[in-house]
Structures are given as structure tokens and as C-alpha cells.
């Protein structure tokens, strides 16, 4: 650092740092502290306001984390390499089922792991396959298996681009669902699924976990945490590592090769970047992230079924990418937060409105206009969660809101939330001048 000009960069290392300025370093630090406070704010410490940092948001927020990991992978394939894929749900599924096969406790023993072993009918249950291995084995392998499957299908995927690739990868999702139906030993019942291994860290298969994640209590003998808080911090740590990997990838040779293929594939080849090889690399890395995300998501949920890995899940990632901003890590995070928390926010808002139905005043009137509590009432949102047809329930409104948001962002802000942030930042950087 040179005296008098603290912001002067004196090495290329400083110039290509993840957080190059002191302001960014500080902001990242503050954000971390904010997250920790938010999670710790369970009312136990009186000085942390519970209205902001309450437990209400912890569960939805934890659920965002595995999605953010998978979204990073989607961003590497679609945002960075420019290959539009709708098969992300399939690779999440591969990761999730690798996890449950390696880490789950099956009632069928090892014998159940050989498909069609006792020659019974396809849909009869032979018992579930599970090896009960610890997380440090099943989590990395979930990513590796997904990546291997990615490499396996890549010969078909690297030869097509754009819309054609999207269609090829849609096919993967349906093939995956079909395989899941054929192999109940692995996938469990098609509708109700099976139980996933818990997020506990064991050294081997011992009874008491080395680091437990599913009971309230003192953690590592240091700090008292609830079950939810432990799981949040565990998943958050994995997310941070995966973010760092993604960022490093984008700022080095391989990341540039991927971007070059996105921007001009012919020119990239003439510059010595083998197009098909790097498309395969992008596909594999993206699948690895999807596998890790899928495994963590299923484990956090405890029980998922094959139908959860349907096309709608893939489309959710398209929404994340378009709303957050393609090609950037920060945009991916913003997009995931927005898309995954939106249903929760809409649900909360509806609950709040229905609580104010008869309160009169502006809020009461608004609630009356928006909500339908029974027949003869004409609001677009039904207060009943299982309402069929019109008026629709909150849960049915969510896909509609995604769709509308994708269209709005595509038309008005193609760079997504990240683009909006850049605009705001540049405005204040130049203020009071316009540029």
C-alpha cells in the first residue's frame, strides 16, 4: 500500500481480487456479521430485535442455501458458457439419489442395491437400498456422480446449441423420472419418496455423531445453538466454499474459455480453445454443483419424492438466472434469494391480509379486494390453501408470479437484479454528475 493513496493498486493480484476495494471487503464482512446475527437472533439475546432477526425466516432461508449451490452450477453452464439447459433438475436428482443410496439407511440391505435382483415385478418393493456411509463420503460423491452422468450425456449435448440443447436436456428430466419409477429400491415410492440421511457429521457409522446437526444443544462445546441454526451454518459454510470455487473458476483460464465460447464460439476455436472439450467441462462442473445442491436439499428436507425433480424445478433455475442476472455470482445469489423467498413472502402477506379482513380502513378494503374467503366473494386469491380453479390459492399463484417476473425482467432489465444494482452503484459513484 502506498502512503497517501490507499486505494492505489500496486500488484495484479490486488487487481484481480474477489473484493478489490476496502469498501467491498467491509461490505462483505458486514454482510457475514448480519447473517450470523440474523440466525442467532432467536430472542435469547435480548439486544437483537426479533422482528428483524427472528426464527420465522430461518427455515425458508436455510432452504435457499442448497438451491443457491445448484443455481451456481446452472449459472456456470447457462450464464457463463451460454448453454441453455433445462436438465438441471435431473442432475439435482442424480446427486440426491446418489446421496440416499450411499448415506441412507435402507431396509433392504445391500441385496436391494442390485436392481431387479430377485426378479420381482418392476413396481413391487424389494426394500430400499442404502449403505449408511457418513456425509464426508456421500456428499462429494453425490457431486461426482452427477458430474459423471453429465459427462456421459455430454456427447449428445455438446453438438447442439440454443433451443436444441434445451430440448435435449428436457428429455433428460423425463428419462430421469421414468428411471425413478422403474427403480423403487433407489427412489422409494414414486409419490411419497423415501427418507434421506440426516445432516450429521460422522467419522464412520457410529451411533453418536461427531458433529450433530439435528438436536438443540452446545455445538463443539462452544456455543448453544438450535437444530435449525446448526443446519443453517453448516449449509452456509458449504455455500461459501462453493461460491469461492465458482468465482475462482470464472477468473482463471477455464472460466475465460467458457465465456469465450458463449460470446463467439468460432473465434474461440481459432484462438485455440477447443469448443467441445470446454462445453463438456462446463457441463460436468455444472452437474457437480447440481448434484451437491440436490443432495443437500433432499437431506435438509428429510424426505423428497421423484416428482420433486420435475421440469418445474428446472424452470425455477431459469427464473433465478433471469431475475438475478446471468453470468455473475452475486446475481445468482440475489436471484435465488428472490425466487425462493417470494412464495414465503406472498404466503405471509396473504395470511396478514386475511387477518385484517374485517378490520376496516385501507388495509381491510385491500384485503377484501384481494382475497376470497367463500363463495360470492370476488378476490383473485383464495384463503383456502387447497382451492381448485378460480380464485386460486397462494400456492397456485406462485408459478404465475414467476412467469410474469421472467417476462418483466426480460423486457425491462435483461441484466436482472444485478444490473439494477450496478445502475444504482454507478449513479452514486458519479453523483452529482450523470456519468
Amino acid at each position: 500500500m502506498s502512503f497517501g493513496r490507499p486505494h492505489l493498486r500496486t500488484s495484479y493480484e490486488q487487481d484481480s481480487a474477489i473484493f478489490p476495494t476496502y469498501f467491498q471487503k467491509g461490505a462483505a464482512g458486514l454482510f457475514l456479521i448480519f447473517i450470523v446475527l440474523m440466525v442467532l437472533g432467536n430472542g435469547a439475546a435480548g439486544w437483537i430485535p426479533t422482528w428483524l432477526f427472528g426464527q420465522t425466516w430461518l427455515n425458508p432461508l436455510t432452504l435457499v442455501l442448497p438451491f443457491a449451490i445448484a443455481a451456481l452450477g446452472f449459472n456456470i453452464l447457462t450464464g457463463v458458457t451460454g448453454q441453455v439447459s433445462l436438465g438441471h433438475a435431473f442432475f439435482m436428482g442424480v446427486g440426491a439419489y446418489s446421496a440416499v443410496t450411499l448415506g441412507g439407511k435402507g431396509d433392504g440391505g445391500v441385496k436391494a442395491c442390485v436392481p431387479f435382483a430377485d426378479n420381482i415385478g418392476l413396481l413391487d418393493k424389494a426394500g430400499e437400498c442404502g449403505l449408511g456411509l457418513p456425509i464426508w463420503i456421500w456428499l462429494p460423491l453425490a457431486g461426482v456422480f452427477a458430474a459423471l452422468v453429465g459427462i456421459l450425456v455430454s456427447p449428445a449435448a455438446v453438438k447442439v446449441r440454443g433451443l436444441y440443447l434445451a430440448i435435449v436436456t428436457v428429455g433428460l428430466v423425463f428419462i430421469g423420472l421414468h428411471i425413478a419409477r422403474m427403480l423403487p429400491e433407489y427412489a422409494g415410492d414414486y409419490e411419497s419418496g423415501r427418507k434421506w440421511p440426516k445432516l450429521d457429521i460422522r467419522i464412520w457409522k457410529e451411533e453418536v455423531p461427531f458433529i450433530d446437526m439435528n438436536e438443540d444443544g452446545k455445538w463443539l462445546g462452544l456455543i448453544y445453538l438450535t437444530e435449525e441454526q446448526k443446519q443453517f451454518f453448516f449449509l452456509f459454510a458449504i455455500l461459501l466454499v462453493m461460491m469461492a470455487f465458482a468465482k475462482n473458476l470464472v477468473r482463471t483460464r477455464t472460466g475465460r474459455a467458457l465465456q469465450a465460447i458463449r460470446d463467439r464460439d468460432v473465434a474461440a476455436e481459432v484462438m485455440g480453445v477447443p469448443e467441445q472439450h470446454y462445453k463438456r467441462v462446463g457441463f460436468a462442473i455444472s452437474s457437480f454443483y447440481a448434484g451437491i445442491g440436490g443432495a443437500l436439499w433432499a437431506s435438509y428436507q428429510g424426505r423428497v419424492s421423484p416428482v420433486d425433480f420435475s421440469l418445474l424445478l428446472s424452470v425455477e433455475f431459469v427464473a433465478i438466472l433471469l431475475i438475478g442476472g446471468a453470468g455473475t455470482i452475486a446475481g445468482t445469489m440475489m436471484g435465488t434469494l428472490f425466487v425462493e423467498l417470494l412464495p414465503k413472502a406472498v404466503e405471509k402477506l396473504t395470511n396478514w391480509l386475511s387477518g385484517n379482513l374485517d378490520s376496516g380502513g385501507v388495509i381491510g378494503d385491500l384485503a377484501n379486494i384481494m382475497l376470497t374467503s367463500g363463495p360470492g366473494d370476488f378476490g383473485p386469491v383464495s384463503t383456502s390453501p387447497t382451492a381448485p380453479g378460480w380464485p386460486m390459492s397462494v400456492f397456485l399463484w406462485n408459478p404465475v408470479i414467476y412467469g410474469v417476473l421472467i417476462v418483466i425482467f426480460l423486457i425491462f432489465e435483461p441484466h436482472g437484479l444485478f444490473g439494477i444494482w450496478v445502475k444504482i452503484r454507478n449513479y452514486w459513484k458519479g453523483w452529482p454528475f450523470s456519468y
Partner: protein
Amino acid sequence: MSSNETGTSKIIEVEDITLRFGGVTAINGVGFHVTEGELFAVIGPNGAGKTSIFNSISQVYRPQEGDIRWKGKSIMGERPDAIARLGIARTFQNIALFGQMTVIDNILTGRHIRMKNNWLTGMAWFGPAKKEEMENRERVEDIIDFLEINEWRKHPVALLPYGIQKRVELGRALAMDPELLLLDEPVAGMNLEETEDMARFILDIREELGISMILVEHDMGLVMDIADRILVVDFGRPIGTGLPKEIQSNDDVIAAYLGQDFSEEISID
């Protein structure tokens, strides 16, 4: 202006290549060679097949007949990226930069074939990958200095003025440390000042780095000033090769540029 003191060893030989697209013959029996350190120019009217010759050398197109030899070894049928690794770099007529990447990243992509870090070491960042990135960044900064584009280095290239984009593209090709540089209309659409700048860069590259070049260009003033030898093509056929002076007085070349029937038409009138 240009010296004729070029090496005698042939760096690339193009032997009677013919390239057809269905019924259209884009290149019809074109042959030439370039010696070490030579600045060879290819000229001809629009659609004559000049850019197709470049695409054949970098194997984006595969000529059906003939042979292309790099230092005596045939390169027919190789992948374009393998051609790049041999040491053949090129620029494009309609700029083909990586639009969303910054100037630095574009030129660093040119360093791709000279770097080794892969996705695994890249993800880890610390260690050999970081060292290599920093070393190559230094190389890129040298090129940025040389081409005088310092102020643009962190801008996404799609937002830059046309003349600057052309320079970035030259920089990206230079970053490959090539032995042969294919320049496809480096001054097309430029004003006089920009053209003079670019001519200066081309001559500097030649004198300081000793890189052989093949130049496709419509600006006759530039070509006649800086080229050592010139090949003229018309409708895919070669109609003359020689020193700039010989080309200027070649009847076939004059006919190709001014029209075959030019003199007859005047006599009819």
C-alpha cells in the same frame, strides 16, 4: 518503405487449394507461400475469396483439393484450435471479440494456448494457477501498453469504439505469441488517422517481433506501402503474384479492379 530482407525458409505453403460450397467455387486453385518475417498481402474485389483463404488456413473451412503445409507439414484436417497451437493467429473482418468480456480478459483469452492451469487448479486459485495468471497478466499489460489502449482495459469490449475494438482484436492475436499472423482487413472502416496508427502497429510488430503476416486489405495505399509481396485473387482464381510495383502494372489486375470491358466500352461510345 518496406525492406525486402526477409528470410528464405518457407513458413507456410498453400498449394492449389480449391474450396467449394455446393455449386459455388469460393477458391479455385490458389497457391502461394510466405517466408519467415515476410509481410504478404492478399487483395481482390469483394467476394473474391480472400477471407475464405484465411478460413481455409485456420481450418474453419476444409478445402476439397490442394494442400496447406506449415513448415513443411500438412495441416489439412486439423481442428482450428490445433492450428492455433501451431502458432497461427488471426483477426476477423467483422470483429469477433468476446463482447461481454473486458479488454484484459479478451487478451488473456489469447494467452489460453500458452497457459496450463485447468479447472481444478483454477478453482483452487492459490498456488500455481495464481502465479501463472499473474505472469500472463503482465504479458497482457505489455500488449495493452504497446497498442495504447490502457484507458479501456476494464471496459467490456462490446461498448468500445470500432477502431479500439480492432486494436483489441490485434492484441488478442498477438497474445498468442504467434509465428504467423493473419490480418483480415485491419483498417476497414477506419479514418485516415486510425489507419496510420494501425499501419504503424503492423510495422512495429514486424520489426520488433519478427512475426510473418498475411494481410487482406482493400486500402490499396496501405497495401502498396507496407507489403513485401502481393497476391491478387478474383472470383476465387489467382490472377497475379509479385512485388507491389509489378502488381500495379499488371493488366489482369487492372481489368479485375476496373472491369473487363472497361476499354472496349469506351471505344464503343
